[in-house]
């Protein structure tokens, strides 16, 4: 990358955009920081400066802890499953067979659906009275009686993870498929005649080509999963018994349901910080990969 200083002209050209960005992103951010140090409420007057009180209170709050671990669990499971399933599906769709083009087109469908639609769809599937999952499992003999998948603390988070994986594995699969198609045929042929079996061909030929693009998918998906809000809000609203309350849901409840704008803002800032750490860590890894993969 060039480290040359940008000439003044470039800054001037960017100025209008910079002003817009600063007003729509910079100002709210500064206001959030200001709020996070106050006991302001959603309605009423500005509130008083309370120092780090909001932060210390949150960090010792058990709601915060459980929301953090719920978010972590959700992110780890959904991203891992999306990567594994995505790669497997990509490997499958990279094979030659009849109807491959149709399947490739269909693959995009879950990902193209808006989250609201996907969430509503899965709520119907999980419905305790007429949901397809209950019907299927009872008819196949796996289940004696209908269950409320989203209504039980033991299964709600898993049900959400499944819905999220269903929606987002196609993105990973598409990225992986593009990477697979970029593998030169000659290398595969060379590995075959060198006597490499299927696993070693995957390990030494396929994987090196997949790794970079998969890192990108991993970054995107982890950050998005960590911010998850709409899917949970539509399917469970954080329940039952707060078992699916993610950090974003907690922020929403704190700031809007309980109208505590100050502590809500402090919470939002902490999430932003965590995601920034994730993003920087991944950028670092990607840079190293880019440095190696020449």
């Amino acid at each position: 990358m060039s480290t040359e200083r940008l000439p003044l002209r470039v800054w001037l050209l960017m100025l209008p955009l910079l002003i817009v960005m600063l007003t729509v992103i910079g100002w709210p951010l500064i206001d959030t920081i200001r709020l996070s140090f106050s006991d302001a409420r959603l309605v009423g007057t500005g509130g008083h400066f309370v120092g780090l009180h909001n932060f210390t209170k949150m960090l010792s709050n058990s709601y915060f802890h459980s929301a953090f671990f719920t978010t972590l669990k959700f992110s780890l499971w959904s991203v891992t499953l999306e990567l594994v399933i995505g790669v497997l599906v990509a490997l499958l769709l990279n094979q030659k067979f009849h109807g491959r083009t149709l399947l490739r087109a269909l693959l995009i469908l879950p990902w193209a659906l808006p989250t609201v639609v996907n969430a509503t769809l899965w709520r119907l599937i999980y419905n305790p009275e007429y949901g397809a999952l209950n019907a299927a499992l009872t008819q196949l003999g796996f289940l004696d009686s209908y269950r409320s998948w989203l209504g039980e603390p033991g299964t709600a988070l898993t049900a959400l993870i499944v819905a999220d994986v269903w929606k987002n594995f196609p993105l990973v699969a598409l990225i992986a498929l593009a990477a697979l198609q970029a593998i030169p045929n000659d290398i595969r042929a060379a590995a075959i005649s060198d006597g490499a079996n299927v696993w070693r061909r995957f390990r030494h030929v396929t994987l090196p080509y997949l790794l970079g693009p998969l890192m990108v998918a991993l970054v995107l998906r982890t950050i998005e999963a960590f911010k998850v809000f709409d899917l949970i809000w539509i399917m469970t609203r954080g329940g039952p018994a707060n078992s699916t309350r993610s950090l974003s849901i907690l922020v929403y409840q704190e700031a809007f349901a309980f109208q505590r704008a100050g502590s809500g803002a402090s919470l939002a800032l902490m999430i932003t910080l965590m995601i920034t750490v994730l993003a920087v860590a991944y950028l670092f890894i990607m840079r190293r990969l880019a440095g190696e993969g020449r």
Partner: protein
Amino acid sequence: MSTLELHGIRKSYGALETLKGIDLDLQNGEFLVLLGASGCGKSTLLNMISGLSEPTAGEIILDGRTLNGVHPKDRDIAMVFQSYALYPNLTVARNIGFGLEMRNVDLTTRKKAVAEAAEMLQISHLLDRKPGDLSGGQRQRVAIGRAMVRKPKLFLFDEPLSNLDAKLRMEMRSELKRLHQMLGVTVVYVTHDQIEAMTLATRIAVMNGGQIEQLGTPAEIYNRPTSRFVAEFMGAPPMNILPTSAVAGGLRLGTTKTVWRCHHPASEIVVGIRPEALKTKTIAGGLRLSGRVELIELTGPEQIVSLALDGASITASLPAEEELRLGQALDLYVDTERLSAFDAETGLRVEITSEHPKA
């Protein structure tokens, strides 16, 4: 001792027949070059020898063993690709030793073999690098090393030098020739470059449309092409082809006044003259072609001169020292021994004997 036999190899993709019956018999230590234009089926043939694809019909025999249906890794054949096909995440050393590693050869034997090959290819100092850090020529050496360590019965090369620049290509060409002479291995080498074919081959198979048009030593292919296709494919600048018409006691070249006194068949004949067979000095018993200099291209050691004849144009490679001017009249002479004659209809070579005037 490795001999390769191909019997009636055919390959079809759907209704399209890419190879239309290939027969070859390769002796131990031979360097066979498959030469042909892009798309004539060279790679297809090579892939079937290596086992990456199976022929639709025909038999492949290596050292008396039928290879049809044998897995590529069990064929004892190593292939070098145009794109190098190195494993990007492995070091040069592991790339070279990969075939041995996959065959579970122990580490010390492997290391020794890799070091030996690297030494021979002068890439010992690169063993710890990744392919991404190497130049094209170095990568191709690694690819050759990877084939060498396996000590295969047969080496296959698919246009290995096509991705290199001109200077490097020449260097690697000599390198390959040196390696072949040193190791005495059997090689099938695919290229569309006739210079590569001429310099490397012990025998050349010129391919055309899925068939072998001519099989012979470089000298045979060049001097006695069995068809007009081979004649025109080999040589740069290409061979001049002139139509003829029968006159009393010989053939008249084009619409010129030049007559080749010879015994010729009744069929229509075209005559081929290599540009370097044309001279400015009189040749006893030779033919004279008179024309006007139309174009001069200096290549360094020689000049390529286009000569406008009556209604035709021929190209001559003349020594650079000859002083020529555009538009000047020029007489060129050719020894009739160096003429090739082809049937205008079938394109096949016709042997024609000259009638020498009593001196």
